[in-house]
């Protein structure tokens, strides 16, 4: 597929540089029509993957990356979509397989998918208060109540942050570091006042 096929039809679409497959930045408003056009007119019949990504200092902060595969032409295409106001239109009406991927992106990043038939969490439990793949979420986790309220009432237990002693260890990149390698995320190591 020539890049012009997509950019002529959807003028807001930009071609992005990429080393492995044609990549486009698609406007949120055009996403559903773009995916429909790619599926029906260009043969991209299989949604290989849909995932969220936290760009940290870009606006909009969150993005969604869609990989489509054509089983007839045997090629991939990648679509980048920015989540304006943390929302992106759902493509699960076109590719039912996107349903779970979108639930996961919502679960992990808090991206809302407009028009999603079943916007629930998928990997974490329904009452979980955070979105763990956001960059500010600590690797060890944050203390939260147990998923089962009745068990929590009897045992008084909570879900505790994971013990981090022993790894994973990484040195900051760039020049040779002076100290020992240590975990990239040091939030677990900060001194906390004794309860």
């Amino acid at each position, binding site marked *: 597929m020539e890049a012009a096929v997509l950019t002529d039809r959807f003028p807001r679409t930009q071609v992005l540089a990429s080393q492995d497959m044609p990549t486009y930045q698609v406007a949120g408003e055009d996403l559903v029509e773009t995916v429909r056009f790619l599926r029906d007119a260009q043969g991209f019949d299989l949604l*290989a993957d849909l995932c969220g990504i936290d760009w940290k200092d870009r606006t909009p902060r969150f993005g969604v990356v869609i*990989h489509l595969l054509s089983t007839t032409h045997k090629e991939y295409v990648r679509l980048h979509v920015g989540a304006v106001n943390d929302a992106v239109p759902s493509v699960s009406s076109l590719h039912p397989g996107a349903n779970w991927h979108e639930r996961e992106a919502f679960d992990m990043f808090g991206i809302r998918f407009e028009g999603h038939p079943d916007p629930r969490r998928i*990997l974490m439990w329904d009452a979980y208060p955070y979105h763990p793949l956001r960059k500010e979420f600590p690797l060890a986790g944050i203390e939260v109540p147990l998923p089962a309220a009745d068990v929590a009432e009897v045992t008084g237990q909570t879900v505790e942050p994971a013990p981090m002693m022993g790894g994973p260890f990484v040195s900051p990149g760039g020049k040779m570091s002076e100290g020992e390698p240590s975990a990239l995320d040091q939030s677990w190591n900060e001194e906390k006042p004794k309860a």
Partner: protein
Amino acid sequence: MKTTKEISLGDIAARAEELRGENMTLNMGPSHPATHGVLRLSLELDGDKVVKCDPVIGYLHRGDEKIAENMTYNQFVPYTDRLDYLAPLANNVAYAIAVEKLAGLKMPERCEAIRVVCCEMARISSHLLGLGVYAMDTGAWTVFMYTFNEREKLYSLFEELTGARFTTSYTRIGGLTRDLPEGWLKKVEVFCDGVLKVIDEVDKLLTRNGIFLERTEGIAPISKELALAYGLTGPNLRASGVGFDLRKDKPYSGYEKYDFDVPVGTKGDCFDRYLVRMEEVRQSVRILRQACKNMPGGAWYAEDAKKIFLPPKAKVMTKMEELIQNFMIVTEGPQIPAGEVYFEAENPKGALGFYVVSNGGGVPYRLRIRGPSFVSLSILPAIVPGNYLTDIASILGSLDFVMGECDR
């Protein structure tokens, strides 16, 4: 006085709504032998017919994608073992190729061929378990013992190659942990002869078995359109009649050099999915034999991968340059240029995809894992309703999923 009352079938049909009882909600799992791991199906039943199926996943969620953002590329290799833990070698290879693609590395032929051998052995190992357990799900114990016996031999070969039976962690970015042990390929060829005999035996035990046929034939057919719509890959997609195989259609690691066929089903029911896996084992043996016979010599790691692959130990001990390189790679990780890459490999369960975003340096900015089992399970709400409760074991077994990869 009239004392008789005429009844007819027609009346009963008309009163169907009135005769219908309440629907029952049943939780199958998370600990249930037929769910192959910690999967829970929240089922709505009308009698023993399933009306609604809502899979609940996440019991095995470890946050692999979060962990990957916090460690160097090579440190993440052991985590890939634990995705599809029935084919860890294939996961290692898929991950290594994804990152190498981002680094723009070209692997030497020997490395590629060794990786092909690894992938195909992993496929046989995974399918042997898949077939054995599937037979058990449908009521036949013996097959499981046959296939497990063979898998045991495979694990001994894995042990000799990688040092571990289960969690192999064999690849590194830019190469492997070590070269093939001497005489190992001969043992693989001996294994190939043995496994074919067992597959023939399993074939005789199951393929014309009346009970097995009744439990699988025509159960939960997945049409071509449905399979594509849900993004199924691997044997599950091919059983539905789509002849798409990444090894043929998007060759990687030198798969284009091998001669093999891609088995394709027609109806896409449980029986077709079983047949496709049986044939895939035979084709894998074909690939293995070719790879063993034509194993190229030369380097087994990318020699030009200066800041990525650890230099040979002898040089580290004698040369300053290599010593520094070794130190830098171990502490700061293999230096991968900025960019993004998506790579899918044809794993035993389907296409295992890695989407790697790098800002440069030794740690990925984002590493997304596309698990084929996650996708295979997402089709359950579409195919389970309308089947009987007893068929669920048969349907789940035929999809051949692993929760480690689904929940990540």
